[in-house]
């Protein structure tokens, strides 16, 4: 019965973990940037300029958004379903994908059935058709032609559009909002710390802290273990009527190793000499030379002729 309950528990945990991981992957998608009025910006494959919505996969795993929904109507969360089965809907880690809000869904997977000009809010909905993953209200009054609204840093900020968004200096369809002229971290580090002194001190401190903590913990575990072993040893001493107690701490591991080796040899390798088979075998030795009677082994040193 117990086993059945344990198995059921494990299965339940697995099921929820799987469910959670599945939902979590879609939940990692973010509406990252929108351009409402496009007169002089990026063109779609048909050569048309329309408003667009950029989605960003903020996770470090590929996310398939096939079956998820886009809508501009909170009362109708399943307004546009992203078609399933299109390989292009598998968004690679930390990558972007662009949807054209041109109200021309027959043009392909990435063309929505509404426009941004007519929308007050954009919502990205999970494949269950109920869970709102991300939403953003469009600040129409602030958005001039070819000016986009996006997250300051890709994927960062709240999912209700209340934090982390601003009017961007330039549009950045299908690329990082902030990363176009970003200076790599290593370059900044070299500028701040040209001789590596800060880095060395910081890193060595971190290495030392890790190992010092490990030292402290295992010092305490060791003490606890020695105390327990000593108690057991003392009990055995009392039982066997020994006057002197054996100090566990001072007993070298080498002693245990020697005893263990002897027992191993005795039990497994038949190396014990306590019982001899008492059979003497005299066999003809084919070798002409045998070292047992060699003079090399019987003389302590090479004789020197007296002068």
């Amino acid at each position, binding site marked *: 019965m117990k086993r059945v309950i344990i198995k059921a528990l494990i299965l339940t945990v697995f099921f929820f973990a799987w469910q959670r991981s599945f939902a979590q992957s879609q939940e990692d998608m973010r509406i990252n940037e929108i351009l409402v009025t496009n007169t002089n910006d990026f063109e779609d494959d048909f050569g048309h300029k329309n408003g667009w919505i950029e989605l960003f996969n903020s996770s470090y795993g590929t996310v398939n958004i096939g079956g998820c929904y886009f809508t501009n109507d909170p009362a109708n969360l399943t307004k546009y379903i992203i078609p399933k089965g299109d390989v292009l809907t598998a968004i690679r880690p930390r990558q972007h994908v662009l949807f054209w809000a041109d109200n021309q869904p027959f043009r392909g997977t990435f063309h929505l059935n509404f426009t941004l000009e007519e929308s007050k809010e954009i919502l990205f909905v999970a494949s269950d058709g109920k869970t709102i993953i991300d939403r953003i209200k469009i600040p129409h009054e602030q958005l001039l032609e070819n000016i986009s609204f996006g997250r300051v840093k890709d994927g960062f900020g709240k999912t209700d559009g209340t934090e982390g968004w601003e009017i961007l200096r330039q549009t950045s369809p299908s690329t990082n909002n902030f990363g176009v002229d970003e200076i790599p971290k290593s*370059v900044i580090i070299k500028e701040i710390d040209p001789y590596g002194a800060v880095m060395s001190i910081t890193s060595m401190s971190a290495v030392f802290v890790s190992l010092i903590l490990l030292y402290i*913990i295992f010092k305490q*575990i060791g003490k606890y*273990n020695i105390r327990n072993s000593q108690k057991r040893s003392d009990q055995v001493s009392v039982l066997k009527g020994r006057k002197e107690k054996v100090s566990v701490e001072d007993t070298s591991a080498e002693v245990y190793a020697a005893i263990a080796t002897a027992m191993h040899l005795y039990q497994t390798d038949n190396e014990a000499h306590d019982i001899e088979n008492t059979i003497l075998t005299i066999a003809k030795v084919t070798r002409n030379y045998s070292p047992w009677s060699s003079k090399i082994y019987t003389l302590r040193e090479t004789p020197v002729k007296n002068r």
Partner: protein
Amino acid sequence: MEGNLFQVLARNLSQFWEYTGFANFDGNWGYLLMIAIGLVFIYLAITKEWEPMLLVPIGFGIIIGNIPFFSGLSIGVYEEGSVLNILYQGVVKGWYPPLIFLGIGAMTDFSALISNPKLLLIGAAAQLGIFGAYAIALLMGFSATDAGAIGIIGGADGPTAIFLSSRLAPNLMGAIAVSAYSYMALVPVIQPPIMKLFTNKKERLIRMKPPRAVSQTEKILFPIIGFLLTALIVPSGIPLLGMLFFGNLLKESGVTRRLAETARGPLIDVITILIGLTVGASTQADKFLQVTSVLIFVLGALSFIIATTGGVLFVKFFNLFLKEGNKINPLIGNSGVSAVPDAARVSNNVGLQYDKTNYLLMHAMGPNVAGVIGSAVAAGILLAFLA
């Protein structure tokens, strides 16, 4: 007709000649030089027995990688889709090193460290080589990422060096890996003079307290607590630390013997063959023979010297705070670098030169395995800062 036959034959032979390695040398003596280096590696491995498990595959890999060939046939290590290129992906993507760490964990006995946990600190001190080399590399004009990747050579840990360089400086990975493995093989040559230089006779004769017996519970707790602690501090080291401690748990749990045996036997052997061969093959002369590679070798040597010095001097400093009878022989300071078990063997051999009955091997294994943990932590830190 006869004339035509000879013409066709001559053209075919001429074409065949163009396919041969001889024709493709094209005056690039670098290939010959690299083949010679490969042969030297094999010679050192067989005759001197310097890290033969590494130097034989790497040496032969160097020879494989430096046979000039007609490009486009998808045979070179840098040609996408070639067999060597597919095998090389384990190096490029960095999944060989964690598997090697799994095997190392499954074959490492942390008892010496658990019985005397203060030896952990020596493993931390010896990581000075990594950051010393990092600082020098910066001064020499390398970028911070390149300097970090080069510095890790000082950790004396081939898999860690490959793992970090594949992330920070993939273009330098061949030189870094070959340099790391070469100096690991040269540990018995590099370390003794430094150890002798910074110690006096009295210190070399210090006898350390024999290690106490360690219970199985302690051995089981070590990988679990060790991982939790180090990974929580340096999450970027999870691939290496996770595999190292997981391998050790397989060994110490006592209930996963088969898994432990596979990890420390066939698995690590297979990965060692693949990593050695492909790293060797990646040293194609046209990509490897550059001034940068020479600088990396110089920096690699410096990092080993700094690491050894750091370990030995730290023990001397540490001894100032330890009571008589608990003092540590500074000859085990060199073992803080994670060249397991060569560095520990060097401690033992140098110790025996001064006292034929003072066996330091067991004591030196403590800092040696601590060095493995320390270098993985250091790699994680560099990755977090620079990647």
